[in-house]
């Protein structure tokens, strides 16, 4: 790609939320189905080309049991994470929200931010299904001033203050992205999977920790709490490095927002969807919502 084209793409992508950025954003749990008395999972979070190899950037996450800059947690020995590892991106990190089987919020532990991945642990003290989500909300804008294209990022309150009235070609995008994984200790439960009504969400008809090859999976998708009909959902099997074809599968939700599909090979899969034109509460803004889930399909 030519530099000019690349710059244009970078500029364009700067307006888009994380999931729609160049490369792929994902989390990968060490296990999705667990038994025993005291299970833990370790979760990797990264932005990469190949799935699921951390080879490009760590996912910037707040609340992973490290300080805001990705350094050791407050009180820990060693240098603070000021600046973080090289190659880290700026901007506000995504919020990590871990929901326990009873619906309560749980803290992640032992977080660290490396050059290629963020990683954290979740102690599964309750039986049932946990929802682990990285949520990124941002307001971006572009406009013309003095013949130059200006870019802006901030809060709804700051928007009116920062951008001159009557700015030409003003485009405001309110982005919401959810990147999530599900893990279950013991029997799958549904409490943690209740919709929040914000952004694009997957509501299980088939439980996301009960997926087997050759069986039809059904998920209902909602955008800001409303059904997402006729939406394209892309599913890509992991292990891209060891095959020549990407193997991307395109599916579509039906008139009620229900997605039905099945896969033939076991493994981890990356599921991705986005919608670009929802009504926004911010004046003159377009709302763009994105969704990513990493799903494990087990052999029969």
């Amino acid at each position: 790609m030519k530099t000019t084209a690349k710059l244009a793409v970078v500029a364009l992508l700067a307006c888009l939320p994380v999931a729609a950025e160049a490369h792929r954003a994902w989390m990968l749990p060490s296990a999705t189905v667990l038994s025993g008395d005291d299970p833990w999972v370790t979760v990797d979070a990264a932005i990469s080309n190949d799935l699921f190899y951390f080879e490009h950037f760590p996912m910037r996450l707040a609340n992973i049991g490290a300080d805001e800059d990705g350094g050791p947690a407050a009180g820990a020995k060693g240098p603070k994470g000021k600046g973080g590892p090289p190659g880290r991106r700026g901007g506000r990190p995504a919020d990590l929200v871990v929901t326990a089987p009873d619906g309560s919020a749980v803290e992640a532990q032992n977080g660290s931010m490396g050059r290629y991945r963020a990683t954290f642990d979740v102690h599964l003290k309750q039986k049932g299904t946990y929802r682990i989500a990285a949520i990124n909300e941002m307001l971006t804008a572009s406009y013309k001033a003095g013949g130059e294209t200006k870019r802006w990022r901030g809060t709804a309150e700051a928007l009116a203050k920062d951008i001159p009235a009557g700015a030409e070609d003003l485009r405001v995008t309110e982005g919401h992205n959810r990147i999530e994984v599900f893990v279950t200790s013991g029997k799958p439960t549904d409490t943690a999977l209740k919709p929040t009504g914000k952004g694009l969400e997957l509501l299980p008809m088939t439980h996301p920790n009960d997926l087997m090859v050759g069986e039809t999976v059904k998920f209902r998708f909602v955008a800001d709490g409303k059904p997402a009909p006729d939406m394209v959902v892309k599913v890509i099997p992991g292990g891209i490095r060891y095959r020549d074809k990407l193997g991307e599968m395109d599916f579509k939700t039906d008139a009620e927002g229900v997605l039905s599909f099945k896969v033939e090979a076991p493994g981890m899969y990356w599921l991705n969807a986005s919608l670009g034109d929802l009504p926004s509460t911010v004046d003159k803004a377009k709302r763009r919502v994105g969704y990513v889930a990493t799903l494990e399909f087990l052999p029969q």
Partner: protein
Amino acid sequence: MRIAITVGLSGAMAAPTLAADINLNVEIPRLSVAEYHRPYVAIWLERADNSVAANLAVWYDVNLRNNEGTKWLKDLRQWWRRTGRELTMPADGLTSPTRAPGKHDVPFAGASKPLADLAPGQYQLVIEAAREVGGRELLRIPMQWPPKEPINLTAKGEHELGAISVTLKP
């Protein structure tokens, strides 16, 4: 056709060791995908034992700052293993920017390197393409060097490469 053969023969008789030219045409397919990046492409000549006889071309993101485009060269995994990892990038006369979807003429003059130094023998012309967040494909076209007469060889890719045509002229 007759003219072509005559020219070929006279050329061979006049100077049997005179280097021939390779005129390659490479098609980069237009793909309908959510995120498209032009593929990295490597073209080389391989001996029967898979060793590299000549590096012909490497198309990659040569213009990124700090030489960052080299990060994905290893995705041309055969080329990388056979020869890429031995080289310093960018390399004069070898590397150039990635190309847009469409057909591209890629001529190699017999009088200049690396063809000028190529020993007579049986080779495979290898074309490998790897696309960021996409797939990878490799094609091999057997060829005799130097050609005894003008000849056109073709191959067709399935997903990352389109029609490939190789014209050899003595």
